[in-house]
């Protein structure tokens, strides 16, 4: 109980902040809710009902912290087609059937939450999702563009609507256009949306852009009511229609079509899109959360499902987590779920208090808000971003986009998945890589058995959207303040979805004081320079050298910082390495990522052990220190890991006089015990005792410092470099 008290106290202290954030969000949610509902051909009020029910229920039942819930952009296209197909032309009837579909899909979402299917969204390739969102954006844009110019008669599918845009424009500019004023209001509203972020005025920015549009258009109508002699120049059809008494005019779902295939399709589409949209938003909002909390995704799904059921039952659209409103929420200082609750309460208050004023909002103004949102979703900038990741991603993106536009969302996303998979097969020239390894648990995680206790994950075979959830479930078990090393050296293919998600983990760990590093990708080729580009083990080494991995880039910048030189590929072999006992039984294949500052050289070495079928490829990071004076041959080791070397060479354990502790902790092997004892001065012994442990070998030419028998992370390389430089200094000073 003692722990509960401060929690309650901070909750109460934070209430004013959350009320304010909720208020600002409600200013956006009001026009958006109305607009999204109108865009779906549902009664405007249904969008507000969804936001109110969602805000209250998810605030109470949900598992996320600073998200805002309500009607979502993604659903517009699905709901629009649901209302038109289910009603077979009768919009009002179609709406009632759709409400039933919303209730059922709410139940499905509830079940998804109970069965912990929050991982579902991990199985969608991110470029395909991008393509789907862009298609939704185009859909919204195409539909609302006409309405923005006051044209309500244009109908058709997305493609037809796009083709009719010139028509609407000529009609708008032609004389005798009765909706000229309405169209001008639409265009002005769009300009407000576009230029809002460019105007850096504190007072102007106090009110969000959509609310400016609402306020200005209401003011406009009052001008006509009180000051102008003319009639309000906007047609009745172009004004929002809200029932006089909201509470007594609720619509109720009609379940009579529940077993038809159309209905089932609609339910699947709604569930799919609303869960994907919600899960993506929750993930994105978690990154914004100032307190860096982790959302309980499944609990949130349950809450969203329950909220959708209630909302559908009283005539509202379904409830999803929305990213844009959530980020406004975070930006205005929300700290917990109560902000969502307050946003809903303000909406309810607006609805009850300003019913008459809301009726005065012209539809073109709301349409402009949606045109802007649609454009944002499908902006050409997104396409160029995707192209920078790779040509294949653009192919996935555009095929998903086109198929969604020409057919429907479910076909589109399925096609996106199939295209992605086919591309992966072609890139790897192998189907069996995927079929034989798909069901194998390919991720191993353990904590390394040294004092640092790093989490180490090794991934085998391949890692793409199909089995990313296995990696994710392991990563999710690590507190973000820990050190993690993810090793892909045994994995021959890593796709864009995984790379992007790993990057998210990297920032999450960084934000909470942990460290997350990916190693073992330096041998994998990428076609572009983008950090999220997919990578595969390639037979041609040409592309490898061109596009550096994140690790290579950070090595390069470290080299710059400390005035070392960096080369990513070393073609000459380091001949001196074969002098070391460590490499007696090994064949060096390749030296990569060489950092050099005169005497010290850090490098990744790839070598093989054993011959023919017993051959194993090992990657490791080592350091070589050139010494001016000859040093005796010795091996310094702590856990006897390399003891076979001294077996072969007939070395014996040597103790240093006056340092019993050192002799106890380290194994020191060498032939010439006298010169070794001379070499190990007090300073050197103290240095080894007080610094991290490495396996060290010495020959006439210098010292070889060996990390573990795996590649070192960037952090470990820094530590190693520092160790080497200081060691070199101590030895030279002696």
């Amino acid at each position: 109980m003692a722990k509960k008290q401060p929690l309650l106290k901070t909750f109460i202290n934070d209430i004013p902040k959350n009320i304010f954030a909720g208020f600002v969000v409600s200013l956006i949610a009001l026009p958006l809710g109305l607009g999204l509902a109108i865009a779906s051909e549902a009664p405007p009020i249904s969008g507000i009902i969804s936001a109110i029910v969602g805000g209250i229920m998810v605030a109470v039942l949900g598992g996320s912290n600073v998200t805002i819930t309500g009607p979502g952009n993604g659903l517009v296209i699905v709901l629009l087609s649901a209302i038109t197909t289910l009603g077979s032309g009768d919009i009002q009837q179609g709406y009632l059937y759709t409400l039933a579909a919303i209730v059922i899909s709410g139940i499905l979402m509830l079940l998804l939450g109970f069965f912990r299917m929050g991982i579902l969204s991990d199985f969608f390739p991110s470029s395909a999702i991008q393509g789907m969102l862009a298609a939704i954006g185009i859909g919204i844009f195409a539909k609302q563009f006409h309405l923005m110019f006051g044209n309500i008669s244009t109908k058709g599918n997305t493609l037809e609507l796009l083709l009719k845009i010139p028509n609407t424009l000529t009609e708008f500019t032609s004389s005798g256009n009765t909706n000229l004023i309405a169209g001008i209001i639409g265009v002005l509203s769009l300009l407000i949306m576009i230029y809002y972020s460019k105007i850096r005025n504190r007072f102007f920015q106090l009110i969000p852009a959509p609310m400016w549009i609402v306020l200005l258009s209401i003011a406009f109508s009052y001008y006509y009511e009180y000051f102008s002699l003319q009639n309000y120049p906007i047609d009745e059809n172009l004004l929002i229609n809200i029932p006089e008494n909201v509470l007594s005019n609720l619509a109720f779902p009609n379940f009579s079509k529940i077993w038809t295939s159309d209905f089932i399709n609609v339910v699947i589409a709604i569930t799919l899109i609303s869960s994907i949209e919600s899960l993506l938003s929750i993930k994105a909002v978690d990154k914004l959360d100032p307190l860096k909390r982790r959302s309980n995704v499944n609990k949130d799904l349950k809450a969203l499902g329950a909220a959708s059921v209630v909302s559908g039952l009283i005539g509202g659209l379904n409830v999803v987590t929305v990213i844009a409103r959530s980020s406004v929420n975070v930006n205005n200082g929300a700290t917990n779920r109560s902000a969502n609750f307050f946003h809903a309460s303000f909406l309810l208050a607006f609805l009850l208090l300003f019913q008459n004023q809301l009726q005065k909002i012209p539809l073109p103004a709301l349409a402009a808000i949606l045109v802007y949102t649609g454009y944002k979703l499908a902006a050409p900038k997104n396409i160029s971003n995707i192209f920078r990741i790779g040509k294949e991603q653009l192919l996935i993106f555009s095929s998903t986009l086109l198929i969604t536009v020409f057919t429907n969302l479910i076909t589109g996303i399925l096609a996106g998945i199939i295209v992605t998979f086919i591309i992966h097969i072609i890139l790897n020239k192998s189907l069996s890589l995927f079929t034989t390894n798909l069901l194998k648990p390919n991720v191993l995680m353990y904590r390394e058995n040294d004092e640092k206790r790093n989490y180490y994950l090794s991934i085998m075979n391949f890692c793409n959207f199909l089995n990313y959830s296995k990696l994710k479930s392991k990563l999710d078990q690590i507190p973000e303040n820990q050190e993690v090393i993810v090793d892909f050296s045994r994995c021959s293919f890593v796709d864009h979805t995984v790379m992007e998600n790993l990057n998210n983990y990297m920032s999450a760990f960084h934000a909470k004081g942990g460290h997350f590093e990916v190693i073992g990708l330096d041998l994998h080729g990428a076609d572009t320079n983008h950090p999220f580009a997919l990578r595969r083990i390639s037979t041609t080494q040409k592309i490898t050298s061109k596009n550096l991995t994140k690790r290579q880039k950070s090595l390069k910048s470290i080299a710059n910082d400390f005035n070392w030189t960096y080369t990513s590929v070393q073609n000459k072999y380091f001949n001196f390495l074969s002098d070391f006992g460590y490499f007696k039984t090994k064949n060096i294949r390749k030296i990569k990522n060489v950092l050099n500052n005169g005497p010290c050289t850090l490098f990744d070495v790839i070598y093989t052990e054993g011959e023919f079928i017993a051959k194993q490829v090992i990657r490791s990071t080592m350091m070589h220190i050139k010494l001016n004076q000859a040093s005796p041959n010795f091996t310094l080791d702590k856990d006897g890991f390399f003891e076979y070397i001294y077996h072969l060479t007939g070395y014996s354990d040597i103790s240093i006089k006056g340092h019993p502790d050192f002799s106890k902790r380290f194994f020191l092997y060498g032939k010439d015990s006298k010169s070794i004892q001379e070499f190990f001065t007090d300073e050197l012994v103290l240095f080894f005792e007080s610094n991290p442990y490495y396996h060290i070998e010495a020959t006439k030419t210098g010292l070889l410092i060996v990390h573990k028998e795996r590649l070192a992370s960037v952090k470990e390389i820094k530590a190693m470099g520092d160790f080497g430089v200081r060691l070199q200094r101590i030895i030279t000073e002696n």
Partner: protein
Amino acid sequence: MKQFNKILIGIAFSPNLRENISEAIRLSNMFNSQLICVHVGNHSTKKKETLKEIFKNAPKPKNPIKTLFQKGSPIDVILNVCTDEKIDLLVLGALQKENIYKFYIGSIARVLTRKAPCSVLLLTKHSIERIPCKHIVVNGLKDPKTKETIRISFNVSQALGCKRITIVEEITQQEISVKVNDDISLRRANIAKERLRNREDIRVKDILKHIDTKQKGGIDIKTQSIFGKRGYSIGHYARVIRADLLIMNAPKKTRLFNRIFLQDIEYILSDLPTDVLIVK
């Protein structure tokens, strides 16, 4: 204490024959046991000549080698010989995928592994020269058989001159029982994990306590808990730390159910990380 007194190797006249026999003789010498070679098929003078030739060049056996020729289906013959001769260890060679680093067990060997009444050694690195065994990984599963398996691994490592044993405790997701949803459950899951790790450590230490110090002498013993799919992750781990021999419990009776949903040892058989000894 269990000892490998009789070792059985099935021989086929394949290009690998020389390596297989060299390896088997070396093993039988290390364990000081008798080697029995079985060939399933006809007895012919040509085959005998080849064998003679190979034996002549192979390492010298400490105990006389017995060679049998029997007709029948390979599985039945080998299983029968195992029971008749009271074999303690059956040695099988692994096949190799086109990809040079992947090994797997053929269908016959797989059935033999499942049905053999004795321990089975699956060899990936058979060679004419001896490759020293430097690191053995043993499973430390919570299982009645584990005690015996660990005991045997110390015998084996003494016989092979191996100086390093890592006992791996695999902790499965189900055991942690706390599902990670958010920060609070994450903290709880980690506490549960730490507790499990300690419990497993204590269990393994307890087993180790009951092993003769003579057996443990000169061997560096480590324990490591890993999180992953039981049976598979230990193979992955053995691969990552490049163990030379992986010693596992024999699986419980395999039913049809277990064969459809790959379990424990089946994962390892489909992709051998290194030499594997299955103790029965």
